[in-house]
């Protein structure tokens, strides 16, 4: 189907929505009200001016070392995460809806985790099949009956939302272990203010820079009962070669806490200490950016050099808190994801505000037949992969690739899910000198403490390759600043 030509002047001239849901233009080619000021500014700008600003932004990222490490390059090359200068705008009323939906969802997920590590009512009442729980790769039966401070398992959650052609926001997946990317939310905003100062005057863009302070408040809140009066909070990183190291250092600096590697910590008498120039200092809370598997070589992976021997024991004794808690990965298993709307009904007696994308489980024989038959039309995902790996987009795949996934599904049906292809909404983006629509998603960051805090907006990722639906940085994705705009100011 032919898209609508937006008959605008300047850089937006000839912009084609391609028939997709467009974040800036409505179906009739009109500009959505929340985007009007941005649209007018872009329309009045020359390509040269825009390109100058673009280069200034890129240089800022490079000089500040806002980079991620490319693993495939053995010299550890650092690249900047491609940044698209045209922001994605979310209307205030839409955001209110998203925010309510996310609060509901995180509440359900935390209730679910408490349940699966205690009574497992959800299995007993046959909402979730027991075999799916038992076979979830990140389920930690060792922690059955273990109580975490204030009953909060997931403290920090990154929930990926997509918007379909119907304009509805769907939850694509939950990242309940150690979601990354929030530093780009903060840094993108910082760069945008530097490059487009005037645009911020015209909009009432809700600020995002409270995130580090809110995160620190949360981490202090979950300190164990026997913590020091001023709880000592540290960030545990796998180290400087981790692709997200920039973010770890960024957050630690913004919170004013120490960033530590495993070798900086030592466990004595079931308490955790860090090695300082003034001797050993007690640690109360660890914001860990390292997976369960690598936390403690005495308990999980024996070959882990990243972890701290004895850490899990100190945690079990209640002498140190971990955020997120151990064992949250069971909640972001892509098979368990299918049951989240049911969890919301089961634990909260509410209807889900943000729907899931319809999901078929090859674990169920009835679904499996459908999946194998229609694989060319579906997106297939492996239950525990992320970063755009272990995934097949049927309509874009070769028949050999489809066959490969068919075989994999037959061999291990528990580990695959299928979803119809969601025609992700598009947003005007800079593409080699012209502005074209590119598909985007949205990852808001949810901080769940005594109260739940969600910074307005989140990380908008954009698939910069033409036609691509994959937004991951490892697969040619970039990011945009995300503006939540208060509506009364431009009505």
């Amino acid at each position, binding site marked *: 189907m032919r898209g609508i030509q937006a008959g605008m002047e300047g850089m937006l001239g000839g912009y084609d929505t391609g028939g997709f849901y467009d974040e800036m233009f409505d179906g009739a080619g009109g500009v959505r009200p929340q985007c009007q000021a941005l649209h007018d500014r872009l329309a009045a700008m020359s390509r040269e001016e825009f390109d100058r600003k673009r280069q200034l932004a890129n240089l800022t990222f*490079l*000089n*500040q*070392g806002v980079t991620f490490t490319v693993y495939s390059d053995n010299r550890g090359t650092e690249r900047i995460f491609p940044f698209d200068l045209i922001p994605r705008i979310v209307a205030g009323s839409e955001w209110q809806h998203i925010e309510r939906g996310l609060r509901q969802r995180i509440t359900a997920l935390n209730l679910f985790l408490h349940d699966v590590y205690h009574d497992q009512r959800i299995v007993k009442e046959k909402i979730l099949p027991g075999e799916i729980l038992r076979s979830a790769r990140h389920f930690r039966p060792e922690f059955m009956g273990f109580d975490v401070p204030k009953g909060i398992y997931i403290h920090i959650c990154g929930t990926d939302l997509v918007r379909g052609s119907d304009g509805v926001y769907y939850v694509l997946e939950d990242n309940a272990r150690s979601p990354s990317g929030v530093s780009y939310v903060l840094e993108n905003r910082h760069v945008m203010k530097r490059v487009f100062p005037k645009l911020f005057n015209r909009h009432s863009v809700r600020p995002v820079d409270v995130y580090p302070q809110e995160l620190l408040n949360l981490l202090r809140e979950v300190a164990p009962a026997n913590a020091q009066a001023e709880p000592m909070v540290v960030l545990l990183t796998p*180290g*400087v070669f981790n692709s997200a*190291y*920039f973010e770890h*250092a*960024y957050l*630690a*600096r913004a919170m004013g806490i*120490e*960033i*530590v*590697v495993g*070798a*900086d910590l*030592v466990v*004595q008498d079931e308490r955790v200490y*860090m*090695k*300082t*120039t*003034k001797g*050993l200092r007690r640690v109360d809370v660890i914001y860990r950016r390292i997976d369960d598997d690598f936390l403690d070589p005495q308990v999980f992976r024996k070959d882990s050099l990243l972890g701290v*021997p004895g850490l899990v024991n100190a945690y079990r004794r209640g002498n140190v808190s971990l955020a997120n808690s151990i064992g949250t990965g069971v909640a972001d298993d892509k098979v368990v994801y299918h049951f989240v709307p049911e969890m919301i009904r089961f634990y909260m007696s509410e209807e889900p505000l943000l729907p899931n994308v319809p999901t078929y489980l090859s674990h169920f024989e009835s679904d499996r037949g459908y999946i194998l038959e229609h694989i060319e039309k579906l997106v297939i995902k492996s239950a525990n992969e992320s970063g755009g790996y272990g995934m097949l987009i049927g309509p874009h795949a070769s028949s050999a690739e489809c066959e490969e996934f068919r075989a994999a599904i037959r061999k291990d049906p528990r580990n695959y899910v299928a979803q119809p292809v969601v025609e992700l909404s598009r947003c005007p983006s800079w593409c080699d000198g012209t502005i074209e629509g590119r598909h985007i998603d949205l990852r808001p960051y949810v901080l769940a403490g005594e109260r739940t805090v969600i910074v307005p907006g989140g990380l908008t990722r954009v698939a910069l390759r033409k036609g691509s639906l994959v937004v991951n940085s490892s697969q040619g994705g970039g990011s945009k600043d995300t503006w939540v705009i208060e509506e009364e100011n431009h009505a």
Partner: protein
Amino acid sequence: MLSRVAESLYWIGRYIERAESNARMLDVNLQVTLDFEGEQGEVALQTWSSPLASLQDHQLFESLFPKVSPEAVSEFLTFSEENPNSIVSCVGGARENARMVRDSISSEMWEQINLLHLWLGTEEARALFNGSTIDFYRKVVDGSHQFHGTTDATLTHGEGWNFLQCGKFLERADCASRILDLKYHILLPSGEEVCGNIDTVQWLSVLKSCSGYEAFRKLFPGPVLPWRVAEFILLHDSFPRSIRFCCEQLDAALHRISGCDRAHFANEAERLSGRLCADLNYETIRRVFRAGLHEYLDEIQQRLIRVNNGLQEVYCRWADEAETS
């Protein structure tokens, strides 16, 4: 402060200073070579062997380059990634450490180091090196100064800053002693008449390597006497690149870290640095020459190594027992 962070800050100070010192030495060498252009190769060859001798990197150099030439030595000490003491390696080392402690340094400091590191990898830097080598080395020295200036203006003058100061001044004292010692290598075998033309130029080059020429001239108009130059570099109390001044600063920074007053010591590093300061404070150049300049400088280098070991021992090393208990 985390022991690992303290160690990284200390090494940032050392690496940046070492890069600067290399740039200074090469810059001055180049200028001396230009002065002697046309004269026979003996002087030029000596001039270019000496930086290698002073850095004790001769073996590595020989494994990488067929023979000593101005180009080969400059390349080895500037761009060679195989040489851990080249300017590129030192700045890279400083940057790697800075990356590990980004949360403990200011963004401005990180940007200074990162800019210098990125610039050294550009075509532009190569072109400047090929086209105007002296300007290239100036730019490296400027980069170091900008880093130190930024550090002093943006980083809290607390524990971390003091570790940086320790690294900077220990390395600077060490480099000054090596630059001075360079002349030992040149002068001894040459048999050149004392205060001959070449000799004077060589001593002037020592002063210039330390940015000390103008300061020296203000103090000592008249002929450049070798022993005066040595005294100035070794024992001057307030010239910021003299060995005595650097050792004073090192000792002061060490004492600020522990909070111990300077008349006493709280650990082995302070005991050794305090003693080194006392020796330099009460030394005379006459006694130094009697003992032998080379021997004296060599001992200073050994003593600086022991201060370094003492510092790492007390602040950065953790016994293996602690790891497993």
